[in-house]
């Protein structure tokens, strides 16, 4: 991947690069120092200075306000959504790339269209369905629609990947008398591990940060997920800005960890569907 594209300095690019770095790092630095500032100092000290009495008290105030429960809800919804999405998508991708007849191609066409359906456009009927199914204000109300809207991009990426697996591998397994389930579990699944990891991390990021489904489909604190809790903290901690920003830091930490651990998969997953 590290082809030498050009070996002369790119002055305009470098200038833009450094300016943009400041634009990105500035707000992130601000979040950090403010979350470490005692609330009393927030109104007096200069907003961009390092706090003169750094403290984790703001984090304590956030944790005392049910943050752990919201965190757990987010973990549950994200893990269930990603697992379910990958399971149903790998099966469908296998049909699309190696299935009999034209059904697979129709499914694929549908998925391509599905990429363009904005969640906003479907939210009112989704709300109606969830209420009718008796799932309103439950974690399942978030998981099912999240899976549905993650399927198109997941199918696209897995299909792209599976099409490159040599057909001879499938044929030889069939000659050995393996059934389709065996092939799925013993060949397709292990072969697509990199693609599954990439699109899995990508989906996790989307679901973890999703706001509209929780806003419309849940209500009580028992089912509150992190992005929604940030919004409610904004109301609860109206003038306690350090606490609001401490909640922001806590909500980003898991994704930061995932990013550090799976940077390559995440970046390839993000560009796999589009980078051509």
């Amino acid at each position, binding site marked *: 991947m590290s082809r030498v594209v050009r070996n002369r300095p790119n002055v305009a690019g470098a200038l833009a690069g450094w300016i943009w770095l400041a634009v990105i790092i500035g707000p992130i630095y601000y979040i950090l120092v403010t979350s470490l500032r005692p609330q009393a100092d927030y109104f007096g000290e200069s907003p961009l200075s390092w706090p003169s009495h750094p403290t984790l008290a703001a984090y304590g105030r956030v944790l005392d306000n049910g943050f752990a429960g919201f965190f757990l809800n987010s973990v549950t919804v994200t893990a269930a959504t990603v697992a379910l999405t990958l399971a149903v998508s790998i099966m469908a991708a*296998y*049909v699309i790339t190696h299935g009999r007849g034209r059904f697979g191609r129709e499914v694929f066409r549908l998925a391509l269209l599905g990429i*363009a359906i904005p969640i906003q*456009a479907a939210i009112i009927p989704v709300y109606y369905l969830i209420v009718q199914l008796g799932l309103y204000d439950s974690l399942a109300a978030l998981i099912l629609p999240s899976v549905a809207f993650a399927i198109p991009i997941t199918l696209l990426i897995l299909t792209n990947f599976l099409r490159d697996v040599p057909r001879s591998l499938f044929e030889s397994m069939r000659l050995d008398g393996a059934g389709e389930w065996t092939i799925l579990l013993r060949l397709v699944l292990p072969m697509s591990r990199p693609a599954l990891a990439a699109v899995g991390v990508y989906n996790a990021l989307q679901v973890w940060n999703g706001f509209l489904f929780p806003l419309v489909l849940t209500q009580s604190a028992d089912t509150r997920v992190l992005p929604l809790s940030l919004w409610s903290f904004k109301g609860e901690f109206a003038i306690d800005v350090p606490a609001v920003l401490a909640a922001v830091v806590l909500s980003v930490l898991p994704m930061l960890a995932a990013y550090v651990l799976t940077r390559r998969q995440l*970046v390839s997953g993000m560009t796999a569907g589009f980078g051509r």
Partner: protein
Amino acid sequence: MTRAVRATGPSGWFAAPAVLLFGVFAIVPLFGVAALSFAHWDGLGPISWAGLDNYRAAAADPDTRTAVWLTAKLTVVSVLFQAPVSLLLGVFLAGRQRYRAVLGALFFLPLLFSSAAVALTFVALLDPNFGAGTALGIPALSRDWLGDPQLAFYVVVFVIGWSFIPFHTLIYQAGARQIPAEIYEASRMDGAGAVAQFFRITLPLLKYTIVTSTTLMTVGSLTYFDLIFVLTGGGPGNATRVLPLDMYLTGFRSYEMGQASVIALVLVVVGLVIALGLNRITGASRMESEMEGS
């Protein structure tokens, strides 16, 4: 291999769970939104036939009219801001600089933040009394950024850019890395300067990347919701009340689900038109023809 010969392979039933989930929660709602646009529904009670009432009401609603105009304006201004910056940064990051990897890793950070987190950060950062503007001691910076209708719109554009430019930078970086070095070598032999190379080689060869990225930006502009919702709530007044926000407020705050469905339908149609254009241009259709040949 013709279809007649290929009798092996998984049965279509393997695709059933995905089709079922996607069908029930994505495709059925699309038809549902079309049906609801002809209905009166407050979100709780019975649903009744409305004919074209909702269409008339939506067309006459000043908020919705403003929202259509605002969404178009936001799309254009956002693309004009994001596309050049993403292109420049992406091409720059594709280069050989030693600190490229570090910069690339840092540039990616905003993608990890939820829209709610980004919005809350900028609400605090732009606070007229205690925000960062007061730190730098420049009076022009400590104004009421989110309280002034004119300013708020551009703050929204900037914050959206902060959030989404990293993604498009990645796309451009991937695209720029696929340009063979030999092409640059050859043009350098011909004495082309860096600027000439950029306009004669980089830009033309990134044509598809530019189309893909710009299309995603445009479709994305239809869906900016959570960021603006938390940042301004559509205000001040309705200065940042874009279509998705208008739809949400009409449906879930004013309990006019039918009228909100009309707005949702507009989003779907525009989104699908753009996406079909994307498919046509970027070779999803090429992918299908490859599959025909398999």
